[in-house]
């Protein structure tokens, strides 16, 4: 590969190509942590998951009866802080993206409660503000897991999202964020307290990999995945957006089975159960 091609080669997903995945060894007590222990028989009961996105179609068959409520965050330049939040008791999805994410989470954790936090819409301005306000709502309303299949590259939001990520962390909340599909810094996916996810091309929803060379830590299915879409549709899609909810779903299962785990312990469990982690022979 020439230097020029090397330069052009995308950064995030390449850690999860078959030839790039590194075999890792679980050491000491981490070797005892297995998927069966971590999430075996768990269905996500008792866990509240917020999907901060384009909304979730509450009556889509792919989400069953899991959607328990939600809010719409709208940009309003005249409002205090430039946004308004209104309740969305029977949420709809303005694009399909949020329903796709919720459908993946529901398939993995069918007993978890899903909350739709709609921050995307037709308006072309104020997206980062809506996004931050939506995340803030999720933190204030005691969600356990938040799926963020979106990000912002605006540097002026670095501090705001960092603060929100810290608040979530200290409230025992796991933020699971897709990294931007464009290899450039984006927030909040690149903070250490966040579980960041890119796509690999496998299809087993429970097979994911750990990348020992962060910032992107986990690789989950996100290539040619059949996903739910708005208006009761299904589509075959590719994107890191669809990888994150796989990890959000597994995180939900772990949190449900082990409610006392803290966010960093959950991340450790996730790492220990990654498909590229070799456990010592028992």
């Amino acid at each position, binding site marked *: 590969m020439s230097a020029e091609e090397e330069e*052009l*080669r*995308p*950064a*995030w*997903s*390449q850690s999860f190509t078959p030839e790039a995945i590194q075999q890792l060894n679980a050491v000491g007590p981490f070797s005892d942590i297995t998927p069966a222990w971590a999430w075996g028989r768990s269905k996500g009961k008792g866990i509240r998951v917020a999907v901060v*996105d*384009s909304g979730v179609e509450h009556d889509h068959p792919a989400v069953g009866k899991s959607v328990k409520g939600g809010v719409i965050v709208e940009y309003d330049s005249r409002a205090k802080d430039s946004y308004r939040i209104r309740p969305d008791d029977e949420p709809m999805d*303005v*694009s*399909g*993206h949020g329903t796709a994410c919720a459908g993946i989470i529901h398939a993995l954790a069918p007993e978890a409660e899903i909350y739709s936090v709609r921050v*995307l*819409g*037709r308006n*072309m*301005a104020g*997206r*980062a503000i809506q996004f931050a306000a939506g995340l803030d709502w999720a933190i204030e309303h005691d969600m356990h897991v938040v799926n963020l*299949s*979106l990000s*912002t*590259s*605006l540097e002026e939001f670095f501090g705001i999202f960092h603060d929100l990520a810290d608040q979530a962390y200290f409230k025992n909340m796991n933020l699971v964020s897709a990294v931007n*599909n*464009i*290899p450039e810094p984006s927030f909040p996916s690149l903070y250490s307290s966040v579980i960041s996810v*890119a*796509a690999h*091309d496998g299809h087993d929803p429970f097979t994911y990999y750990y990348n020992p060379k962060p910032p992107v830590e986990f690789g989950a299915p*996100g*290539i*040619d995945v059949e996903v739910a*879409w708005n*208006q*009761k*549709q*299904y*589509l*075959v*899609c*590719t*994107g*890191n*957006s669809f990888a994150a909810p796989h990890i959000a779903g597994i995180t939900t299962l772990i949190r449900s089975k082990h409610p006392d785990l803290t966010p960093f312990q959950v991340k450790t469990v996730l790492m220990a159960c990654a498909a590229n982690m070799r456990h010592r022979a028992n």
Partner: protein
Amino acid sequence: MDSDQIAREEKLSEQLKRLIVSIGAGGQTVLLGSSDELLNSIVVAAARIFGAGAASILLVNEDEQVLEFKVAYGPAGKKLVGTKYPLDKGIAGYVVMTGQPIATSQVSKDARWDKEFAQSTGYVPESILATPLLSGDRIIGVMEVLDKINAASFGIQDMELLGMFARQAALAIDQAQQLSKIEGALVLGLKRLATADPSKDSSEILSVLETARNDQGEISDLLEIARLLGDISALGEAERRACLQILEVFASLKRSAPRRFG
């Protein structure tokens, strides 16, 4: 000349200088060729590099809430340019609303997917990869490559690479849009300067400015005028008046000659 007028002229001079600096920084490279030409070459290059049957760039029109094909390469090609598409429909609409790139395959096999628009263009793609064009946090359009040749769908690496293309395209579009705004402001500024002294007839200068504004091919001439005006505005009042008189002489000469600008 009263102090208010001096202040106004100084302000105008300041604005003109700023505009000219902006043009120097942002506009020159785009001006060398038209922005459509540049965007065309970006979509053709993208189609070749990605091994795609078609590629296009759509721009958001917020007033009409539509996406408009700016440039297109492929079977539907030229026919698509200028076509409008509802902002909340289809793959491109999805990209605009979410700001997320997406790749989908089996588009034509999925009866539930609204393909009315694609059919109306006579071209229904099998696979699509679409990514947002961003100006800061603002989504100004969508870049698409369609129908991966020799593969069922576009991969995640295609997606990341298209993101890089999109960045270049967005930069070019953004510059062109800024330039158009600068041009408008510049003409307005020149008009104000030309009509600053009501005792002088400036109708011909105004007419020249109108012509330049309407004729996209003459932007560089206009910029040259602006550059000179920038220099002139930095001079003293007497020099400025002298320049204005020269322009007026030129205008009065033109009045008697057949109209031909550019």
